[in-house]
């Protein structure tokens, strides 16, 4: 049992190292939707494609097959970028993303979208999107015109997917059936000066992404789960170590001293225990705007009494052992008995509860994050769940947005619980 726990923990630690090697700007850009525009929005995990091969596909990235440059007249330089791809799926792409950047300012940019049946859609790229990546919603005016030209009416809902049908469905079928075959996309960039194309590609966004799908902004959930891991472990470990150490020392002293001092310490412990944890943390967090360490200490501040009470009951039973009484007879000073003969007996439960305390700390930290209280610039699973709730993932059926971060909180708790139980079983015997 403990071994399983250690193995899971090691795997988690490997992922933690991976997460820590992710550059800092990824963490910083997490809450910036613009950083994730190239990702399909709120799509399920890619592995669904294994079960429904005809329904789900992933993003396809196209590189230009040919770039040619010519100058038909003075001060007119035309660059023609050609892409071609075979489309065999029975659905249009989720969205199409054009990335064209040049080292000069174009006068005009035109996209010629050739379908396998020979029909062509001509799209004029608006000025504001020159040298900036854009998707179908940026050029929806032309596409909507095309749709009403073919079908005779404008679509009711305008989003990337309906716009994409215009590019992929056959005009003969009133844009209801996707055309298979070879598509050729030509992009004409006209400039007054000679220019170089620095970067160009087309993304045919899939309707599924990665291991855990994406959220409303296109943020990949798997990345979020990964980025949340180090901080979750850190806050769990921090709260557990601090609260268990404080709790065991306070409880140990309380049980060791006994009598009135014990009563006073127990009273203080109970006062802390009676503090309603969540409202207290919410209130304090609003006032202090904590960082990760401070939040950990705040959680420890509220959870040490649990361990103090357990440690005290252990301490009372240790105290009644005759060797502790004998130590007094031997003329060993009281503080020395406490540290050398008494506290070492509390170490096993300290270790066990330290392991068991980690998930508790993680859970509380994620709960706070779910309530919108988390240190800035860190990714939390609770925060991801909070957004899922805000964007009504449950109503929209975006289950992957809720399931995976939630599952992760459980997965992280499991190894610590297994290890804690194993240690407890070794030290306190079978129960």
């Amino acid at each position, binding site marked *: 049992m403990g071994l399983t726990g250690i193995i899971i923990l090691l795997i988690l630690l490997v992922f933690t190292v991976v997460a820590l090697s992710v550059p800092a700007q990824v963490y910083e850009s997490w809450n910036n939707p613009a950083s994730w525009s190239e990702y399909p929005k709120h799509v399920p995990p890619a592995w669904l494609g294994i079960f429904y091969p005809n329904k789900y596909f992933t993003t396809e990235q196209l590189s230009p097959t040919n770039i040619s440059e010519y100058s038909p007249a003075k001060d007119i330089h035309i660059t023609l970028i050609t892409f071609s791809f075979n489309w065999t799926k029975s659905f249009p792409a989720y969205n199409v993303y054009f990335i064209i950047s040049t080292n000069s300012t174009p006068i005009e940019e035109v996209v010629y979208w050739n379908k396998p049946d020979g029909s062509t859609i001509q799209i004029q790229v608006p000025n504001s999107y020159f040298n900036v990546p854009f998707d179908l919603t940026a050029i929806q005016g032309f596409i909507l015109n095309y749709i009403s030209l073919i079908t005779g009416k404008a679509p009711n809902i305008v989003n990337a997917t309906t716009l994409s049908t215009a590019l992929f469905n056959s005009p003969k079928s009133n844009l209801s059936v996707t055309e298979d075959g070879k598509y050729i996309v030509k992009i004409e960039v006209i400039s007054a000066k000679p220019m170089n194309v620095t970067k160009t590609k087309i993304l045919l966004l899939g309707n599924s992404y990665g291991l855990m799908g994406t959220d409303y902004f296109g943020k990949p959930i798997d990345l979020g789960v990964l980025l949340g891991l180090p901080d979750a472990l850190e806050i769990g470990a921090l709260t557990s170590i601090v609260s268990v150490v404080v709790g065991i020392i306070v409880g140990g002293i309380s049980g060791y001293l*006994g*009598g009135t001092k014990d009563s006073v310490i127990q009273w203080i412990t109970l006062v802390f225990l009676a503090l309603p944890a969540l409202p207290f943390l919410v209130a304090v967090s609003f006032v202090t705007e904590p960082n990760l360490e401070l939040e950990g200490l705040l959680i420890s501040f509220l959870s040490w009494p649990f361990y103090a009470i357990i440690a005290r009951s252990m301490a009372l039973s240790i105290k009644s*052992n*005759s*060797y502790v*009484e*004998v*130590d*007094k*007879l*031997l*003329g*060993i*000073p009281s503080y*020395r008995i406490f540290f*050398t*003969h008494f506290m*070492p*007996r509390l170490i096993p439960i300290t270790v066990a509860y330290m392991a068991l305390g980690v998930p508790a700390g993680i859970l509380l930290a994620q709960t706070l994050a779910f309530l919108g209280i988390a240190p800035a610039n860190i990714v939390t699973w609770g925060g991801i769940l909070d957004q899922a709730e805000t964007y009504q993932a449950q109503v929209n059926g975006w289950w992957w947005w809720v399931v995976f971060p939630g599952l992760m909180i459980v997965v992280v708790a499991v190894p610590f619980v297994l290890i804690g139980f194993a240690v407890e079983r070794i030290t306190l015997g079978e129960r």
Partner: protein
Amino acid sequence: MLLEVQNLKVYFYTRRGVVRAVDDVNLNLDKGEIVGLAGESGSGKSTIGYAIMRLVPNPGKIEGGKMLFKGENILDLDEDTFRRNYRWKKISMVFQGSMSGFTPVFKIKDQIVEVLKIHGWNGDYDERVKELFKMVNLDPSLAEKYPHELSGGQKQRAFIAMALALNPEVLIADEPTTALDVVVQEYILNLLKQLRKDLNLSIIFITHDLALLSEISDRNYILYAGKIMESGPSEIIFKKPRHPYTSLLIESIATLDKDIIKGISGFMPDLSTPPKGCRFNTRCPFAKDVCFNEEPEFKKFSDGDEVACWLY
């Protein structure tokens, strides 16, 4: 006189009232003497032992009396001085549970060395441990073992070795053999006698087992309900006791030639409300009117016996 306990009073402050567990007890101990302290359960004999160590368990308190160690009243010393200069150094203790008196997670040797270190023993610790183990007839290699690796008798002897570590002058042996079988009991008794002879050690032997006491003690104190009933040399106490309680106790010793063992009927009185007069009056077959009204004074006899009874 090495140790004189005068008018010792130990009261326990419980919720039901003040329990007078030890009331006006006088006890003397000479150098090299083995003194027996006998009585039934709850008579306060162990409490006297702990009181001499100044470690009366809560909620008990030493409420009065003097304890003169070589003429100095050790009850007047502050706790720290007493711990440093007397406890275990001059007066040490072995008791029934001392088998489990070793902390289970440390080697026996380390625990003895710790005691030596704390009390500032000058000399080689290893040598001293070896010496002590030889003194109690234990193989010195056992010192390297953990407490659970030793048998009960071995542990008890190792504990006696620890009790002797600092060359104390008084050893309080509080039922040191109760949890052991008779063979080991005999062994421990002989060991204590041997130590008395070799080290000129004074021993207060606390027990409820009069048969055992008769083998070892020079003088005895018979305790009942927190008071001394009779004290005197062993030959008087065991051969011709004067106090009815002593004689009834001796009659209740099981021997092979007895068909019926006579017990003492009744129970010890509740010490939070002790009876008026002699405390044994509720069970004494010879109780007279005066026994229920006035406490008897000690009467000395020429053979060294002292009895607190209205019969004399």
